[in-house]
């Protein structure tokens, strides 16, 4: 036990905060992520994290809290992507790319202005790679509230979301407004990205979004178990990552530790690769897991 938890671990308040916020954002990311992967929107999800970078760096420039920046930019970006390229799948990829490119350029601008504005270094690091050990405790309530709201919205639109993810035509035929569901989902995606950007940074929140979800979809048969497996995996990975990151301060003589995000991402990547081993993967692939909605459409022809 002594080797796993380096001195000072249990008595440290920042670590406790990290645990709570990490777990909450991991759960939201995992649940939203399962739908994201199912809908084949991993690129959009990732693009939103880069958009969040813009928000974070802009927030710093305008003296707002980074959470506000992440969330605000995410919502704007989600709106832009959804409005520009809904219909054709390839058009959507290009639209996503354009928004991403523009947002990234804006992020470059803000980061540049940030560094000229104040002498403080480490802004980029915080925004891009997270600041889970240096979080302001006052952000906890906001994080929890936004998480509950997001999960609540998802629970509400759960069934129409599922149907429109698998087959937009079927959903439309049943009177479901696929467009509205799509927008709501993108908003949920934006919020979850914003939340996890606090914990692991905007560049790496993609991992929390996609990783546990993709892994869970590979090893489970149905949606419910996928959601549970993804959530559990997300939380476990986050906690282990925090522990390892804390410990890593003591590993190197430079006493510079490795970022939490690195450990979390590495663990997620490892888990995904391991899930591909024979015996771990489901033998019969169910249609929802093996193919995103659009190719299913084409296959059904």
């Amino acid at each position, binding site marked *: 036990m002594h080797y796993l938890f380096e001195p000072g671990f249990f008595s440290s308040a920042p670590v406790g905060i990290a645990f709570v916020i990490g777990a909450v954002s991991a759960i939201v990311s995992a649940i939203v992520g399962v739908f994201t992967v199912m809908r084949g929107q991993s690129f959009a999800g990732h693009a939103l994290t880069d958009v969040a970078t813009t928000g974070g760096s802009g927030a710093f420039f305008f003296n707002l809290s980074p959470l506000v920046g992440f969330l605000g930019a995410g919502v704007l970006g989600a709106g832009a992507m959804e409005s520009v390229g809904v219909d*054709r799948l*390839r*058009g959507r990829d290009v639209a996503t790319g354009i928004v991403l490119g523009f947002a990234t350029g804006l992020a470059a601008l803000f980061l540049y202005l940030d560094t000229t504005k104040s002498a403080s270094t480490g802004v980029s690091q915080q925004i891009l790679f997270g600041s889970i050990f240096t979080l302001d405790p006052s952000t906890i309530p906001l994080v929890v509230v936004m998480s509950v709201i997001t999960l609540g919205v998802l629970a509400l639109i759960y069934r129409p979301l599922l149907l429109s993810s698998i087959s937009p035509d079927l959903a439309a035929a049943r009177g479901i407004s696929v467009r509205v569901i799509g927008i709501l989902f993108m908003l949920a995606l934006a919020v979850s990205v914003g939340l996890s950007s606090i914990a692991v940074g905007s560049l790496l929140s993609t991992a929390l979004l996609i990783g546990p979800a993709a892994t869970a979809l590979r090893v489970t048969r149905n949606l419910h178990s996928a959601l549970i497996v993804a959530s559990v995996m997300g939380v476990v990975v986050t906690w282990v990552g925090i522990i390892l990151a804390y410990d890593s301060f003591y590993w190197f003589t430079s006493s510079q530790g490795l970022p939490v995000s690195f450990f979390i991402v590495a663990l997620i990547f490892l888990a995904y690769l391991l899930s591909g081993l024979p015996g771990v993967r489901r033998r019969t692939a169910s249609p929802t897991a093996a193919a995103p909605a659009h190719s299913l459409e*084409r296959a059904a*022809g």
Partner: protein
Amino acid sequence: MSDVPVLEVDHVSVSFGGRTVLDEVSFDVRRGEFTGLIGSNGVGKTTLLRAILGLQRLDSGEIRVEGEPLSRHNHRLGYVPQKVALDADIPMRARDFVALGLDAQRYGFSRRTKAQRDRVDEILRDVDAERFGDSRVGSLSGGEQQRVLIAHALVGEPALLLLDEPLANLDPKSVQEIVSLLHSVASDHGVAVLLSAHEMNALLPVMDRIVYVTNGRAASGTTDEVVQSDVLSALYGHHVDVLKLHGRVLVVAEPGQDDAEIPQHPTLTVN
């Protein structure tokens, strides 16, 4: 012109996923013949077409094109796949797409010769696609795109044209147009046509021969030979009746049998 059939499918068997998809299928296609590959979805038509194109490994049997065994690319075959998703944003005119049928495998750049351009014009005329030759290939309607795909497959002067469910997503008028187009391709230009469909009635007036597939097994011959109760019953493994009414064919299973396997015109009901 020799008597060697353009295509010989010789006791071909294919299985994958633990399932026998094709079981000792045999038939020939001769020069200029119009052959319909009829069977409902999932019976193995696409697998058979892929096997002919050399894209599917055979468990046993052989396929020969003009007497020669299959090679990786056979320019004597033209192919129109079932679904070609052509985005309206793709910057390519219909005539350029057809021209690509001449030299898609060649490396580097070269200006198209006058002979090549004339050939493209000629084939566009043959399929009646001249008027939209300069339009974007992705902006065409389903029927128009189908013609362009056929032109693309024909421009290299193949001996055999293979089409995978070309009629599936077309409206009845387009179905008629494409069928008569393919018929004239076969009879006027001597190109053999093998097309798969799940419904044979639209093809009855033009089909020279039929290959009727179910459960991975096939019966081939003229429509009169194959579309008979005894032949099809043997093929299905249970009794079916064949009714011919006003030039159309209806294949009916006995009550209680699984009708799902029987290719039917969607508006004609069974029982």
